[in-house]
């Protein structure tokens, strides 16, 4: 009975003595797991937050592009409805000849084009590299060219192919690095001519995506690697290779698409929808793209950021 009691005491004593390190190991393991988990979750949250910030930023930029395009369409609409353009077509309809006076009307239009082309747009002068007034048959009546000589006769022809009354924006097929803005000139509800303006896409990119204050390009807020503009159901695109990659990834299910209907004040009136796509270029290429795509009429604006 005594032996049993001793053994029991020994055993009891032994158990509590040997249990401490085990408990400690368990605690340390637990703490380590907790810390690792906590760190992982924190990192994940940071990554998510950074991604959301980037996403929001790019979305803002996409909206800015949409707003910019809307403003430029208004430029063309104003010019098409201006007194000088109306006077030209009125004078022409009344029989005024180029020899005696009509060239004077064109002179005034030239001045308007010159003024519009040299006026600062968001801090950049000379955004329009070319502005033309065309008659209903597509013949150039008067044109203004910026400092860099630029002319695409095919682009001028493209203006009259679509006879929509609302101002339009499309890619210049003969020079896909340029956006072509057009507005019809109407007299008594009949199209008598067109006003067209060309803006290089790189100028829009430089204007909207390189205005941050960071010391390096990557640190600059709003920096984006690419700006792709494409027309739905069209072969024309400003960056065909990258655009095709993105489309392929969409079809291969490597992209997640989320649609947002913007109904807030900033996007009011633009009828835009923004798609967020998180893509990678397949297993061999770990590089990911963060893409924000705005849709404006038939125009898709994709703002692309490579994510390391």
């Amino acid at each position, binding site marked *: 009975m005594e032996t049993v009691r001793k053994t029991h005491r020994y055993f009891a004593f032994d158990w509590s003595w040997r249990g401490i390190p085990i408990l400690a190991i368990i605690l340390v393991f637990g703490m380590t797991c907790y810390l690792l988990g906590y760190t992982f979750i924190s990192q994940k949250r940071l990554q998510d937050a950074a991604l959301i910030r980037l996403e929001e930023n790019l979305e803002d930029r996409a909206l800015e592009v949409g707003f910019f395009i809307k403003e430029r369409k208004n430029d063309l609409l104003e010019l098409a409805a201006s007194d000088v353009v109306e006077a030209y077509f009125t004078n022409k309809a009344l029989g*005024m000849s180029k020899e005696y006076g009509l060239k*004077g009307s064109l002179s005034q239009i030239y001045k308007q084009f010159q003024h519009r082309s040299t006026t600062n747009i968001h801090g950049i002068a000379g955004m329009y590299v070319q502005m033309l007034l065309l008659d209903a048959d597509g013949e150039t009546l008067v044109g203004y060219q910026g400092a860099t000589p630029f002319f695409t006769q095919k682009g001028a022809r493209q203006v009259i192919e679509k006879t929509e009354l609302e101002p339009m924006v499309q890619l210049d097929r003969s020079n896909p690095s340029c956006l072509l803005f057009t507005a019809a000139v109407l007299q008594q509800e009949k199209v008598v001519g067109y006003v067209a303006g060309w803006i290089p896409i790189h100028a829009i990119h430089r204007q909207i995506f390189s205005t941050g204050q960071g010391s390096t390009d990557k640190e600059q807020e709003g920096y984006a690697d690419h700006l792709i503009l494409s027309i739905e159901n069209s072969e024309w695109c400003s960056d065909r290779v990258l655009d095709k990659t993105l489309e392929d990834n969409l079809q291969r299910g490597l992209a997640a698409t989320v649609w947002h209907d913007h109904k807030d004040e900033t996007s009011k009136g633009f009828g835009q929808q923004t798609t967020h796509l998180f893509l990678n270029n397949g297993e061999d290429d770990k590089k990911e793209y963060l893409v924000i795509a705005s849709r404006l009429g038939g125009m898709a604006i994709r703002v692309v950021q490579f994510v390391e």
Partner: protein
Amino acid sequence: MKKIWVVLLVVLALAASALAEQNDLEGIRKRGVLRHLGVPYANFVTGTGDGLSVELMQLFAEHLGVKYQFVQTSWADSIADLTGKLVVSVGDDVKVTGTAPIKGDVICNGLTILPWREKVLKFSTPTFPTQVWLVVRTDSGIRPITPSGDIELDIAAVKAVIANKSVLGKLDTCLDPALYSLDAVGAHPLLFDGSLNDIAPAVINGAAETGLLDVPDALVAMGKWPGMTLVVGPISPQQFMAEGFRRDDDSLRLEYNRFFARIKADGTYAKLAKKYYPVVFDYYPEFFTN
């Protein structure tokens, strides 16, 4: 007594000669200032410190190595301010009616070369092509002529339009209706009291059924009042504008001609003209092509 008069006359003649010399090229260089007589008119002298003529004279002053001074004058006074003679035009001739103080060295403001002006001035080589057009209000019911390719036929067609119509012009300028025999076609010439720049708004406001404008002024009017005036056609053949100099001042005029030939050859003048009259090249390409 006779000798005294002779001596006095000689002294006066010498004094007058000395005074005259002060206004020639040498006198200008000695004085160190070129006095540009200018009438605010179209885009030649805008009245706000610039204009094609203003910039041209500033370059000429720089070429001479003297300072530039603008002296504002009027169409009625400009010849007297340059020559010291008060004159009135009588057809293609002039009548001297008195004297006036000389205030400037050159008239430069889009001065059209007219026969009567050549009687009192010497012109530089032509510096700007022009023409006189007939303008009407857009809603006047008068329609422009269709160009025939022959300027004389076009002028005849325009004159046929203005029979029994009032025509607003300005005396002693290139827009003087008397220069174009408008009476002969049954038109009723009216002489405008205001400045040349105001003829277009006067026609718009109904001061006359038609009005005369030269090409540079018509271009400016089209910009200021787009869609309110209509050019019917030409009243004159092509004319030329040039700078006016004193008839006895060949040294300055010849120096100006050399200067103008240089800036025309190197493209400076074309740039200036394009700045103030961008479509002028389309109207008169041969004039600006060397």
